[in-house]
């Protein structure tokens, strides 16, 4: 399991490749499911120029650890990688990467979805959008 908060932009495909190649369970993992969330340049009918993502250092990592641990045990995952951006983000840049490895596809698919949904409701992150004519905190996540 690897959980990391990143202040700089990252390439999720390079991250997945590097992480997978170093995995000790590589010959047991028959499946890998991934989710990559990126920043859009529109929201609720407005153009969004940039976004600032705030987190609660210490608690965010702790809650992500609890989520990944629970989902891994319940679904029999071999490994999980979670990367999440914070700070100033531009449209098109990745915000979050979740990778789940398992022996068979169902556990990887289910585990990836469960981790993402729990992350969006339990891991303390907050988005502030900078619009053409001001800025605003996002008050709610969009439905999955």
């Amino acid at each position: 399991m690897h959980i990391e908060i990143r202040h700089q932009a990252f390439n999720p495909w390079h991250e997945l490749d590097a992480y997978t190649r170093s995995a000790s369970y590589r010959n047991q993992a028959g499946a890998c499911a991934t989710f990559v969330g990126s920043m859009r340049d529109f929201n609720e009918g407005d153009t969004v120029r940039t976004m600032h993502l705030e987190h609660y250092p210490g608690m965010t990592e702790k809650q992500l650890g609890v989520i990944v641990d629970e989902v891994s045990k319940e679904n029999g995952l071999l490994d999980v990688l979670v990367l999440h951006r914070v700070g100033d983000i531009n449209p098109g840049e990745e915000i979050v990467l979740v990778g789940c490895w398992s022996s068979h596809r169902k556990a990887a698919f289910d585990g990836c979805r469960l981790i993402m949904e729990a992350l969006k409701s339990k891991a303390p992150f907050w988005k502030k959008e900078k619009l053409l004519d001001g800025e605003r905190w996002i008050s709610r996540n969009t439905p999955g």
Partner: protein
Amino acid sequence: MSVNARFFASLKERVGHGSVSVDVAEASCVRDVWYAVTGEGPGEEVLVAINKEYADFDAAVVDGDEVAFFPPITGG
């Protein structure tokens, strides 16, 4: 006793503090910490954590606790 009250995102802007030390009476709860800083009710949905674990407004606090207040989560 003293606790460290922390505020995040929109609540930090509303309250005007990211972190502030608060003196409260023995046997106080999270709600007492909130009132000691803001002097008013939450007025909107506010989530609470004590020492980085989720809690609620009726949870007891002890000397040295870190009590965090933040709005609903919007990550991912």
